């Protein structure tokens, strides 16, 4: 009885996604994996034969991984601080955190172009502080893409963590302290396990967002900092090669699933 009820609740959503999402997507992706009339996974392997592909893949993993890690490190303290803020102010803070999400990615990316440019804010700051004599090339580097993606994705991590932390009973940390734990132990052994769901969700969202981002890496990095998604777009738009694009899409899927599993194990 209960089981049937549960499946009934799940059915509409599952059917919707199965028919209107999975079916078309599988139909498209499958096209790339049919070799000589038979199914084969070899395109995934042969993808890495090309040195360019290897470099692009590694670069994408690196930048996305770093962005995920950094966002976790920055957002945990930030989230901990945020949950201690009383309600009226908390609403305002939450609003401020969501605000960047509402600004179109194009506008945000162009503002980074302005900020990181030769005559931009950061170069002016560096020169003003005497750290550099002449403008540094900040744009069109992996660093620029990293910063752009971090700013794009961080609200997702922050909100995930806040959501997980706020349902943590307030006295948990106090109790841990009473039992002799220092701040770090309290965090690692109490807070982290209890909020792992938030970390997993946030981490997956950030990582996925980074590897599937297009506008930001394309405009902030340029063709010399080619990322997986940009390559995918090229295959679809410029080369009219959806088969290659499908291989990349499957690769992205597999990678993200692996990272998701990794996060689950790490936070246990």
């Amino acid at each position, binding site marked *: *009885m209960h089981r*049937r*009820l549960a499946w*009934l*609740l799940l059915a*509409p959503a599952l059917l919707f996604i199965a028919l209107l999402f999975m079916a078309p997507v599988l139909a498209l992706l499958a096209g790339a994996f049919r070799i000589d009339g038979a199914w084969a996974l070899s395109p995934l392997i042969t993808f890495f034969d*090309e*040195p*360019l592909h290897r*470099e*692009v893949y590694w670069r994408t993993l690196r930048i996305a991984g770093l962005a995920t890690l950094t966002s976790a490190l920055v957002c945990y303290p930030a989230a901990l601080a945020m949950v201690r803020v009383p309600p009226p102010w908390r609403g305002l803070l939450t609003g401020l955190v969501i605000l960047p999400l509402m600004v179109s990615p194009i506008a945000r990316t*162009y503002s980074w*172009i*302005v900020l990181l*440019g*030769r*005559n*931009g804010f950061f170069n002016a700051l560096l020169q003003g502080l005497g750290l550099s004599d002449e403008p540094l*090339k900040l*744009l*069109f580097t992996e660093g620029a893409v990293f910063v752009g993606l971090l700013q794009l994705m961080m609200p997702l991590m922050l909100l995930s963590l806040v959501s997980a932390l706020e349902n943590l009973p307030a006295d948990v940390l106090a109790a841990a302290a009473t039992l002799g734990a220092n701040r770090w132990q309290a965090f690692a052994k109490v807070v982290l396990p209890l909020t792992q769901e938030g970390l997993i969700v946030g981490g997956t969202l950030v990582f996925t967002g980074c590897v599937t981002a297009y506008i930001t890496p*394309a*405009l902030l990095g*340029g*063709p*010399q*900092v*080619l990322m997986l998604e940009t*390559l995918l777009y*090229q295959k*679809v*738009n*410029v*080369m*009219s*090669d959806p088969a290659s694009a499908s291989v990349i899409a499957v690769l992205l899927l597999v990678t993200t699933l692996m990272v998701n599993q990794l996060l689950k194990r790490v936070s246990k």
Partner: protein
Amino acid sequence: MNSPLLARVGLAFVLGSVLGALPLVAQSQSQSQSQSRSLVVSTYGFNGDLLKKHVYDPFKAQCKCDLVIETGNVAERLAKLEARRANPVVDLIQMPDFTALEASNKGLLQPIALAKLKNLGEVYDFGRDPLRNQQAVANTVYLVGLVVRSDKPASASVTSWKDLWRPELKGHLMLANITGNQGLATLFMADKAWGGLATDLSTGIGKIAAIKGNVVTFYTQTAQMTALFAQDEAWVAPVGRFAWPNLKKTGKPLKWVVPKEGQLGVMNVLAIPKGAKNADLTEQLIDFWLSRDVQTALANDLVDSPINRNARPRADALDGLTFGAEQIDSLTFMKPDMVVRERAGWVNQWNRMISTR
């Protein structure tokens, strides 16, 4: 069974579907209201308001029909053309000549009744049937030349494509990425300037790869290119003529350079998707677009350079146009069939050399 719950789930589903159906109803209502014939034109997003003024509105008045304009970049519009081949929505599509050839090779275009075009005789020879299969007519030619900062000694003295390789320009040179038309043009002219064979452009790619450390970036969007000029990042870049008015608005001291090796001409063509329903009306629109008056008006506002040799742009507009026998005759064109054949290979080679360390 738990009928109240079923009812709730069902209610939620129905509610959601009704809300989802509302826009559908709204759309179909607006469709049934338009009684007159309607043409769908797929074109670039540039100068939409000026095209409206000189082409769309006058034609609408003349034919008592409606025009719906679909804009976007070439790649997406081609992808949509291909996706909708069984039931084309678009009546007239404007794209570069080699893209039209790509479309034609895929069987996406139908022949235009060239005999019906009264103004075709006034079109330059190279524009009348550029694909040699009657499936496209050029409606404009634009050239790719160089834009330089006139106040920086290193860039102000640039007079040829080869000058782009000067070491003094390091860090201030901007090139176009191969994924765009200006990139192809750059590659072609680089190959030509350095004595390549013009059949496989490998000389050009090699030369560009050699200076990849000198460039600010390889731009992919025109607005990005304009932004980088406006922020003093770039001092010199290959630019399509249509972007020149926007560049002038940045207020930076810029000048247009006609390089010694010449400029590359790119034709934009008009074509009719196969199976499109209003071919007769569309052919009238093409004829209208090619007419002397329309071509002159578009030229005067610096929208497009005329393909009609009898257009008479104002003297003060000539600076922003490709016009006159001397200029037209000096243009180099890429062969569309070569582009279609080799482009994928060029992009791969380019990526390999530019994107790897």
